[in-house]
């Protein structure tokens, strides 16, 4: 556990006038290993450590009764502040107009399930959501969303034999006509390095002008979370992240990578396969998990 490791390192420091370079080196190493093993991207780890390590040399730690414990708190607090964001809530317009939420992300990340979960949540909050089945590629994707929508009591717009873009546009029109106030677009899983598919999602965003473009990312994602997020943010523009499958025992360092690189808030975490298993993101929770 990282607290014990810091306690060991700083054990010899307590009462001395200055922390030795060896102490600093050991401390840096401990944080680095802990964060990397938690899947935080190596570039993000570097930045984080460089900003945090100065505090290890600081007055407060040196004079502390338990420097190791204090330093742990410094690291934890820094992580919480990095992960947090004031724009935590969905930024939706009033009920007298249509707000679009675009779901996007890699194959299998949890978009379809998260879309339905969001629909259920918004319905509970008194909104009138419509799910749009704009994934026409994956076998039975439309069926999957239709089943989830029906289980959750959320209407689903579906259309045969068109392009994803056409379904999206028609879904929006349908929402306006039928007076829904929120449209949630489920889309095909795509690789951030797939030029054609990235162009498609960018075109869809342009067409529906979403107030929320949410990257759905798997909590178990490794080092590549950074590249994935960057590409989606640059090509489409991310307004927020849903970190799915947080009920796994993955440490979730991808969260720190995503937030650190895009600066965009993590809005929700997925905590299971059921439609009520979508929770608001609390930075404290992820920070203590990443730090193990």
């Amino acid at each position, binding site marked *: 556990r990282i607290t014990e490791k810091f306690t060991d390192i700083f054990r010899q420091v307590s009462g001395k006038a200055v922390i030795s370079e060896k102490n600093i*080196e050991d401390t*840096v*190493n401990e944080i*680095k*290993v802990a964060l*990397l*093993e*938690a*899947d935080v*991207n*190596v570039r993000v780890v*570097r930045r984080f*450590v*460089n900003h945090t390590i100065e505090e290890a040399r600081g007055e407060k730690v040196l004079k502390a009764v338990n420097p190791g414990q204090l330093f742990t708190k410094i690291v934890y607090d820094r992580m919480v502040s990095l992960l947090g964001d004031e724009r935590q809530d969905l930024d939706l317009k009033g009920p007298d107009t249509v707000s679009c939420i675009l779901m996007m992300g*890699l*194959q*299998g*990340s*949890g978009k379809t399930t998260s879309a339905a979960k969001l629909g259920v949540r918004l319905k509970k909050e008194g909104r009138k959501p419509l799910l749009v089945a704009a994934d026409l590629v*994956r*076998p*039975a*994707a439309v*069926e*999957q969303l239709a*089943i*989830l929508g029906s*289980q959750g009591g959320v209407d689903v717009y579906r259309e045969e034999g068109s392009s994803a873009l056409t379904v999206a546009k028609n879904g929006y029109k349908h929402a306006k006509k039928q007076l829904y106030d929120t449209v949630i677009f489920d889309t095909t899983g795509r*690789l951030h*390095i797939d030029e054609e598919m990235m162009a498609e999602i960018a075109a869809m965003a342009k067409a529906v002008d979403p107030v929320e473009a949410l990257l759905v990312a*798997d909590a*178990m*994602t*490794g*080092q*590549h979370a950074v*590249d*994935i997020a960057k590409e989606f943010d640059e090509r489409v523009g991310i307004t927020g992240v849903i970190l799915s*499958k947080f*009920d*796994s*025992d*993955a*440490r979730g*360092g*991808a969260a720190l990578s995503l937030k650190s690189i895009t600066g965009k808030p993590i809005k929700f975490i997925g905590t299971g*396969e059921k439609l009520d298993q979508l929770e608001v993101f609390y930075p404290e929770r992820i920070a203590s998990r990443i730090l193990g």
Partner: protein
Amino acid sequence: LFGKKTEGDTFFEELEDILIEGDLGALSAMEITDALREAVRAARVKDREGTLALLKDLLGEHLSTMDTVPDSERLNFFLILGVNGVGKTTTAAKLAAYYRKHHAMEAVLSAADTFRAAAIDQLLLHGTRLGIRVIHQQPGSDPGAVIFDTLESVKAKGGDIIIADTAGRMHNRSDLVRELQKIDKVVRSRLGEGLYKKLLVIDATTGQNGIRQAEIFHEAIGVDGIILAKYDSDAKGGILFSISRTLHIPLAFIGTGESYDDLKPFEKEAFLSSLLS
């Protein structure tokens, strides 16, 4: 990584970074880099090519491949398992296509994911597109019963290889792991003379959690081989190295896309070259 730099150090530091970025994990990357330093000194290697060759040996030492040649005398049964969304259903379809194409086998798909919305529909569609028989029941039925049905169907109508898809399950859900053990029990008790392989699908973009997944599933039912899916995502799949090293599970196949052809037997050399490119 953050320490003082010397001339030779830079190469090893950059290498450690490459291995970390490839999802080998910090501790594994450090161990390998230290071992390489030692090996380079012992072998008095001076050039980059020699160093990389030594590195490939070090990494490759722990990677073994599973024999993917099927048994032509007995019924083959492949159970496909893994956590949610990694590519099991797609891989199951690809495997059926692969064994038909490369080994002239009659493949039968078993829709033993009776839980997730439209999971059966998804596999049925693959079956229709491929012209491969899919044995299924109603959603919500017992996965073991579907497996049993599939074995009966093969007895009655023939079939050389059964590929059974299962529901995604988190390895830290003990109830779901127990369900998997029950499915395993059904296969072992009903397959009789057949050749049984349990294949764990790992998503190439997965980080260190992949090791946990492999550990738990291996402990629960014994994993015979690993299939790395989504290798086309340009993630390096470095956790395979740790999984292989600590659990000694061989690597069976690698998935490189969403088409039926995007699956081939694991090739060690190609994987290592790509990891270090």
